């Protein structure tokens, strides 16, 4: 690219040869109207709104598709340009309905805004206007296709950015209809971005429909609670209600996107299931009480345990989406009670490397560089559903031909890029395959391979993949996803991937849910004498304090959670939602504020610390969790709970935190031990957390619960495996370890490896199916009535 100079409206501007005119005008703040052009999408040049005059061109040219050349003279406001723009506007408006007063886009509508500048106050169009049927395309996006101006931004977004072409433009001429194909729904996990992209009211937010006019809303900057990026977003409120959440552009983090999980989970804030008053369970019945009673009850219960000398048998489990301050006071409370058993890693099962673990689960690679790698290796990661926005960045690099992506995964996930090498290695095979890769890398680079690695290797030939990683060197990235972190031998997988990263020069990223980095930095982790989450669930506790979590649903081994809670003497739950059947072991439920009602600090996978402010006041009598924890400390006469404001807490935790938050995710030493996992004799089980079941907030977000990524309590099997067990797609089956079982519907899933069952966590129905022990499956006659 060479530098050129062009003249726009009589002024000279520097530009790069070949870049589009609109990029130059945008950079220099020169306004050119547009609808189809979007900097993150390919150029379509179909709306013809950005027509401008270029000297010596015979006709007006679209600024979005006109490459600049040296000496080019451009007029953006000349008679030719403005007449062309007005002409386009007239055409756009002839068939556009005049329903702005009832259109959700009104007030934030590029068509409305530009019609003011380029349209006329009356129309010459005397014919009948076009009307277009609006399909139901799912629970998240409302359609009003008569308003569509066919800019194809949504089509291009799906095709280019999201990687699933769910929208298309079938038909011809006036009859072109932007629609899904064959009446299917929009199922992408980032579909909400189409709402932002749509320049008219054709695609609007369904949950937000008719809730407010855009100009009535108040904006509050916030941080996404569910992804590890700390996506920037704006919470929009009206009369103390969250009405909508939209992304806030941050080129280093979420660009201009937001995943549906963070965009629509706000619905839970005002859900009917919201706990608005404290509740106490006595003899199996729940009753609402005042705060004083509830707190006294909670304190009495905890004190009873302490009085029995079982203070160290009090366990604390926190939700990974909690804020840094909540994590801090929570672990402080548990420790002050006399226990060191506190954990937030609800979906992790192997903690053998806790003493040598890095400071926090992190990405050694800045988020903005995820799309520029030459190699990405996913180990146990369905990154598209775990961290949707990082997946978009990887897809971008892959689409541009920069990135070769490979995977060692338990099943053939439907990713939004194609894998160069895709190793399907369920269960213990993931360990053996990763070790084989380490060995292949050692062979290729002439490094000595530790005998322990050789012993773990399953002997697969992974020379091709090894070459991809070795060639990439510093330009390579290894991602450890949810399936690696929840693996029974996660510590070995972490050691192996660290060893591979060290040997190849690749960077490593451990992508954990929500504010996991904050949890680790706030030391919401077991002390040397404490128990980790797994040990707590396995060995049982006298009492529990739960911060925003429901262990039966939030842990992959919910069965252990049920048993442990059942046997606990006393359980205090800080929760935003009313107790449900699976909360039957809870004694006191204390209503906490959601992320929108309280300020809080989040640390993302880069170690970046971001603070969100409260957007609305507390719902009902709920209180910010940090205040409840502080008051519990006060009621229990514990030291160190004198904080008055949240910033006192923030300051306290930041001071207590290790000052070095530079992301590093390698253990301090390589430690090899024998694996606990072994190849199952019969049927293997893959547990996973569906993206819209991962915490109470998403579970109570109504629209998300109707979305495709909430599959329901279904067991998925390969068609051949189904046949082997005399099952058909849609049959009911009894799945369990022989002692306990769940009755689930089975569905065929060709992406599954053979002889494995995929069982989603996050549903009460599947708890028993995830109980430990050899898995059995048998056809059952029908659903339990």
């Amino acid at each position, binding site marked *: 690219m060479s530098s050129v100079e062009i003249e726009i409206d009589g002024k000279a501007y520097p530009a790069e040869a070949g870049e589009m005119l609109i990029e130059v005008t945008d950079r220099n703040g020169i306004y050119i109207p547009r609808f189809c052009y979007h900097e993150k999408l390919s*150029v*379509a*040049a*179909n*709306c*013809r*709104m950005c*027509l401008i005059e270029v000297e010596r061109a*015979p*006709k*007006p040219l*679209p600024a979005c*598709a006109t*490459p600049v050349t040296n000496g080019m003279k451009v007029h953006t406001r000349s008679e030719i340009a403005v007449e*062309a723009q007005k*002409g*386009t506007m*007239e*055409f*756009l408006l*002839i*068939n556009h309905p005049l329903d702005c007063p009832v259109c959700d886009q009104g007030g934030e509508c590029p068509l409305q805004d530009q019609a003011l500048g380029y349209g006329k106050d009356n129309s*010459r*169009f*005397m*014919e009948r206007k076009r009307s277009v049927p609006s399909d139901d395309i799912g629970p998240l996006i409302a359609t009003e296709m008569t308003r569509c*101006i*066919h800019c194809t931004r949504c089509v291009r977004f799906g095709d280019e950015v999201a990687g699933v072409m769910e929208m298309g*433009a079938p*038909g*011809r*001429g*006036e*009859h*072109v209809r932007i629609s899904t194909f064959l009446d299917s729904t929009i199922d992408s996990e980032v579909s909400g971005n189409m709402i932002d992209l749509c320049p008219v009211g054709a695609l609007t937010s369904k949950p937000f429909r008719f809730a407010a006019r855009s100009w009535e809303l108040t904006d509050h900057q916030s941080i996404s609670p569910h992804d590890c990026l700390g996506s920037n977003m704006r919470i929009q409120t009206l009369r103390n209600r969250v009405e909508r959440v939209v992304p806030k552009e941050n080129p280093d983090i979420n660009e201009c996107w937001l995943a549906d999980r963070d965009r629509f989970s706000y619905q839970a804030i005002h859900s009917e299931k919201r706990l608005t008053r404290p509740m106490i369970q006595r003899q199996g019945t729940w009753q609402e009480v005042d705060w004083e009673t509830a707190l006294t009850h909670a304190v009495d219960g905890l004190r009873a345990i302490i009085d029995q000398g079982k203070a160290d048998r009090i366990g604390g489990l926190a939700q990974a989406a909690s804020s840094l301050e909540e994590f801090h006071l929570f672990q402080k409370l548990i420790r002050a009670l006399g226990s060191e058993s506190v954990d937030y890693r609800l979906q992790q099962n192997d903690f053998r490397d806790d003493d040598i673990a890095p400071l926090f689960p992190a990405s050694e690679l800045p988020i903005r560089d995820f799309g520029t790698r030459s190699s990405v290796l996913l180990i146990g990661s369905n990154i598209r559903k775990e961290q949707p926005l990082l997946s978009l960045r990887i897809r971008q690099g892959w689409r541009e031909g920069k990135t070769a992506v490979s995977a060692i995964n338990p099943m053939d996930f439907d990713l939004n890029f194609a894998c160069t090498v895709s190793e399907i290695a369920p269960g213990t095979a993931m360990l053996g395959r990763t070790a084989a890769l380490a060995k292949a890398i050692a062979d290729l680079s002439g490094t000595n391979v530790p005998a322990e690695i050789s012993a773990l290797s399953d002997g697969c030939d992974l020379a091709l993949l090894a070459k991809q990683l070795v060639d990439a060197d510093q330009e390579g990235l290894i991602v450890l996803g949810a399936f690696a972190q929840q693996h029974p031998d996660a510590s070995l997988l972490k050691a192996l991937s660290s060893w591979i990263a060290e040997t190849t020069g690749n960077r490593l990223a451990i992508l954990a849910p929500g504010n996991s980095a904050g949890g680790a930095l706030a030391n919401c982790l077991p002390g040397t004498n404490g128990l980790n989450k797994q040990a707590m669930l396995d060995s049982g506790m006298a009492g529990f304090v739960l911060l925003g979590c429901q262990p039966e649903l939030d842990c992959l081994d919910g069965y252990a959670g049920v048993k442990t809670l059942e046997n606990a003497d006393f359980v205090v739950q800080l929760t935003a939602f009313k107790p449900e059947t699976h909360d039957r072991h809870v004694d006191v439920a204390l209503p906490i504020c959601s992320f929108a009602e309280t300020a809080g600090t989040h640390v993302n996978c880069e170690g970046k610390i971001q603070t969100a402010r409260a957007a609305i006041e507390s719902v009902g009598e709920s209180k910010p969790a940090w205040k409840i924890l502080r008051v519990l400390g006060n009621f229990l006469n514990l030291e160190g709970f004198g904080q008055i404001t949240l910033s006192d807490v923030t300051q306290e935790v930041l001071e207590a935190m290790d000052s070095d938050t530079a992301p590093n995710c390698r253990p301090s030493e390589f430690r090899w031990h024998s694996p606990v996992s072994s190849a199952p004799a019969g049927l293997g089980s893959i547990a996973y957390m569906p993206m819209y079941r991962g915490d109470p907030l998403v579970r109570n977000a109504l629209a998300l619960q109707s979305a495709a990524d909430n599959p329901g309590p279904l067991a998925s099997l390969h068609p051949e495996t189904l046949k082997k067990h005399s099952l058909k797609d849609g049959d009911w089956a009894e799945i369990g370890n022989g002692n306990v079982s769940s009755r689930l519907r089975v569905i065929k899933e060709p992406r599954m490896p053979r002889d494995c069952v995929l069982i989603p966590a996050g549903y009460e129905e599947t708890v028993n199916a995830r109980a430990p022990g050899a898995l059995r499956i048998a056809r059952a006659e029908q659903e339990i009535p």
Partner: protein
Amino acid sequence: MSIQKNRELIADRFGSLKHSSGVCLPALDQKEPWTLEAYRKNGGYQALEKVLGGELDPAGIIEVLKISNIRGRGGAGFPVGVKWSFMPRQSDDQKYVVCNSDEGEPGTCKDRDIMRLNPHALVEGMTLGGYVMGASVGYNYIRGEFHEPYSAMEQAVKEARETGLLGKNILGSGFDFELHNHLGSGAYICGEETALLNSLEGRKGEPRFKPPFPAVFGLYGKPTTINNTESFASVPTILRGNGKWMDGQWFRGLGVENSGGVKIFSVTGHVNKPGNYEVKMGTPFRELLQMAGGVWKNRELKAVIPGGSSVPVMPAEAVLASNMDYTSLQENGSALGAGSVIIMDETTDMVNVLERISKFYYEESCGQCTPCREGTGWLYRIIRRINRGRGTFEDLDTLLDVANRIEGRTICALGDAAAWPVQSFLKHFRHEFEAKIESIQSDAA
């Protein structure tokens, strides 16, 4: 069988062929001119043999084409030799030759007869194109309704392949060229070259924004030369040069300044002998009309659309003063286009004609860009209203304004094609539109 007899036979079987100069349409001395045998008898494939034998290199062929002054026969009239010279011929990248046989312009039926009656001229022309461009694959995109021409082309390709004129190592020269016929699905817009490329690729037939041009980013993103059927089919004869090998002067001399060679004119409408006439460029319109038997029913000529429905209409006096070549028709207010001459007699209702033409563009707009998608329907509806007696005088201004706002504002030329008839009909026959509006208004009064 006498030539006369055979001519009658062919004329009977393929009534549309009325006059051939033996360039793109076959000389009528063969019983079955579409066969390889017949084509060879008239010098077919000699040019290819000579070229592959090393008598002329690609640059030389381009030079001959430039001298011959042949301009693209699809409608835009871009010089073929110049277009061929744009290709990065030396590049090792895959390149393509594509023939546009998606003949959809209302009034045009010439490519159909080339493919039915003289398919080998196209095979040879495209193979020569492939040789010049260094392309090993060619696609012939045939209009969806052209089943018979498609069969004829398939037969010709089969014959050529079987005799070593297509495929690997053609005539032992080491040059490989494979030719595929592809039947479209019935969309006028796929005759636009970049929409055609999209359609060939299996995408929706929507024109691409240019630049980049096909010579840089064409089929599957590779350098591609795309020409009309008649252009390709002319190439072998131009190279043969009527016995004077590789001499473009002969072909050039057939035509006039700026318009080399001969051209097929599809004469349709109110004439006694509608059909294809391959005549010299620069033939006076009067002569062509005479060849076509004159206006039918002894009526007077009212107007002519000389180049297919998208070019401006010409009143009788203007067209009668014109010759059938690029310059003359342009000077008289229209264009040669694809050479589709639509004759209208004195009884023709011009509002009705424009309604029909506008309906066509309204139906065939791809809908991709705003002015054409919204404007073509608007034009059609206004004209229909006027024609049904519900028009107003303001409508005429709106009509012209809408046409002006489409023209030059769209991705491809379909917008222009929809606007030009409206502009020219209003220019020359505004009184007929006004009369319709007035008559109804007086009725109402």
